[in-house]
């Protein structure tokens, strides 16, 4: 870690006033928990929780060839996006590894809005600029946005009290610009919890105001401020990837079980040649879920054994508050990366039995 002072979101003093436990998250001073990870996790699964995710980065692409540039640097098919629609996508190197995983929003034919990971934002921006041989302009826009996620079965009822925009009319993975609590906002029907919910983008100067209004609007539902701890347990149950864990520069989307965001037939894009080879020749390893059977918790970085020999590693693991089981994701040789395999996770030098399982671990009722 560098000695640079930690970066702060506009809500930093709000978190501290709420008594949050703060941690250094990729150089950002962020709340890991307020009332407790399990309590916050359950609030999101059962009612509603609110997260400050203003550390996330934003990059905007403008210009006559904005669509062509966005399509060229990402794995999903940008040509399929309608106005007001978003999708999850991969930003890859030529060698097929992830620069980052991102959300692409189509604002206009000549305007795309990218939400990227906090700790990758500078790298992403440089990468996109380096690939820009189109009539398009790439703007580093993180300073223009704060982002607040409202997640849970009562997220819509909470947010609807603050906006004239008909939230029920925004389909999942669509977004709309409108007024929230008297303030111009971008309301995206997206999230990182496996629960229904919204991600609201506002100018940084309005973050404290909007946060307070959301807390008040959600009071009748028992809304809770939620930290990065609950964000992690929620996304793990839903098997959503976390950069630096399931994916990084050495891992391709086909290995990460993210083939659904790779559209090889859409035309040329960065990393496509490698992915075509991987698709034809097959990948050597693949991500798969597991549940602990023995006593012990498989955690990030622990080794995984098959038939007494090292075979892979845990990318994310821990207790699942919803399922009351110890769960995780791991890489295994592709032929073994299927449900029903008996494996051992090395928990502090002791092999503990586990079994590979279907994912996601948790899927909300529609």
């Amino acid at each position, binding site marked *: 870690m560098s000695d640079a002072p930690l970066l702060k979101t506009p809500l930093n003093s709000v978190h501290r006033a709420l008594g949050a*436990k703060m941690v250094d998250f990729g150089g950002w001073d962020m709340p*890991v*928990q307020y009332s*407790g*990870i*399990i*309590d916050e996790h359950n609030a999101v699964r059962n009612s509603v929780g609110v997260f400050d995710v203003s550390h996330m980065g934003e990059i905007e692409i403008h210009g006559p060839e904005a669509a062509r540039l966005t399509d060229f640097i990402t794995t999903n098919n940008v040509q399929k996006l309608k106005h007001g629609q978003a999708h999850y996508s991969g930003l890859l190197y030529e060698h097929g590894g992830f620069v980052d995983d991102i959300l692409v929003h189509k604002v206009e034919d000549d305007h795309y809005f990218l939400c990227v990971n906090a700790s990758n934002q500078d790298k992403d921006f440089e990468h996109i600029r380096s690939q820009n041989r189109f009539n398009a302009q790439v703007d580093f826009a993180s300073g223009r946005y704060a982002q607040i996620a409202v997640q849970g079965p009562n997220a819509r009822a909470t947010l609807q009290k603050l906006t004239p925009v008909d939230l029920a009319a925004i389909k999942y993975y669509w977004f709309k610009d409108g007024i929230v609590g008297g303030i111009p906002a971008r309301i995206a029907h997206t999230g990182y919890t496996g629960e229904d919910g919204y991600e609201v983008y506002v100018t940084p100067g309005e973050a404290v105001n909007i946060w307070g209004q959301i807390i008040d609007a959600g009071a009748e539902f028992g809304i809770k401020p939620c930290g990065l*701890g609950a964000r*992690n*347990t929620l996304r793990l149950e839903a098997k959503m990837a976390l950069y630096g864990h399931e994916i990084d520069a050495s891992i391709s989307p086909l290995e990460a079980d993210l083939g659904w965001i790779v559209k090889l037939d859409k035309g040329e894009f960065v990393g496509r040649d490698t992915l075509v080879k991987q698709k034809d020749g097959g990948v050597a390893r693949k991500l798969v879920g597991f549940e602990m059977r023995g*006593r*012990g*918790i498989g*955690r990030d970085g622990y080794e995984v054994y098959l038939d007494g020999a090292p075979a892979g590693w845990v990318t994310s693991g*821990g*207790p699942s*508050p919803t399922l009351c089981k110890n769960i995780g994701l791991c890489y295994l040789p592709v032929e073994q990366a299927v449900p029903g395999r008996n494996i051992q996770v090395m928990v*502090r030098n002791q092999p503990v039995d586990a079994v590979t399982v279907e994912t996601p671990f948790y899927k909300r009722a529609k």
Partner: protein
Amino acid sequence: MYPENFRYTKEHEWVLVEGDTGTIGITDHAQQELGDIVYVDLPKVGAHLEKGKALGSVESVKAVSDVYAPVSGEVTETNGLLADAPEKLNEDPHGAAWLVKLKLSAPAEAENLMTAAEYQTYVGAEK
């Protein structure tokens, strides 16, 4: 807050010495720092513990934390409550959620540990 009859370590364990018996636990400060505790790994009865060496671990949702023996001795009892209800460690770390009892091999070892007042100052300063 911190019982006067306990002694405390910098790693946030406590020990209560009664004759040649020692009871070991983790402090309220430790459980607060860990957050929701979901798993406790303890030594077996009969194991010999050496002062300063890991005796087991406590896991929260987020992380694993080693627990170090504040004093040396042989484990005579472990707290069975914690296998089924590790969350008790969040609720009553200085009482019902003790970790192990020992037959002390050197009861005087505890005298070098912090008193309640010293520990209170220590965790106050750590914040």
